[in-house]
């Protein structure tokens, strides 16, 4: 039911790149990405809409493959501030409205 994220955890050094994947068993209309720092609320990074439109963060990019029902988040030249848990979220249609379902999360730690 929940989108599955991979990897579950990743450790990298400042300046290195990382890719986080999000895969759904159900059709995706849109994909959202959030980052949660320890002890804080999750914060919106970006949304990718069906049809290719992307809105969000200037230093982090993402792709959305509607056919494969997958999205990937690309963090290039990682900074210490990128550390946190990343969640992908999707909209699922329900009776009369849409609900937001989140993935299992990826813990990312950037070392100096």
């Amino acid at each position, binding site marked *: *039911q*929940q989108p599955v*994220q991979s990897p*579950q955890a990743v450790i990298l050094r400042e300046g290195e790149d990382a890719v986080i994947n999000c895969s759904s068993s159900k059709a995706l*209309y*849109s994909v*959202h990405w*959030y980052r949660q720092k320890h002890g*804080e*609320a*999750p*914060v*919106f990074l970006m*949304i990718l*809409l069906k049809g290719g439109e992307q*809105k969000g963060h200037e230093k982090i990019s993402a792709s959305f493959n509607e056919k494969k029902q997958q999205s990937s988040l690309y963090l290039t030249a990682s900074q210490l501030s990128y550390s946190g848990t990343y*969640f992908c*979220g999707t*909209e699922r*249609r*329900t*009776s*009369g*409205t*849409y*609900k*937001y*379902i*989140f*993935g*299992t*999360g990826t813990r990312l730690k950037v070392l100096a």
Partner: protein
Amino acid sequence: DVKVTQSSRYLVKRTGEKVFLECVQDMDHENMFWYRQDPGLGLRLIYFSYDVKMKEKGDIPEGYSVSREKKERFSLILESASTNQTSMYLCASSLAGQGSGELFFGEGSRLTVL
């Protein structure tokens, strides 16, 4: 500055107690959500509401109920708390409509049931 406020950051309750978690948003959002966050399981949707007095079950509604009497306030109720409901609870709000954009989250309420 937009805000979602959860009434209690930390609560400790005993098994069988009734627990109320309150959430208030000041953005005039139609949608409000309750999630629980557990290590390795991510954020799981308990209930959500898309209008006053309207509610829908999420993926794990068992043992929970909700109330939305005013647009800005969404309450999560544990009728009889159990130890397996020990968790971090996150409230969120958003505008209505598909693809409408981001959810705004509160800072969370960490509940421990003894």
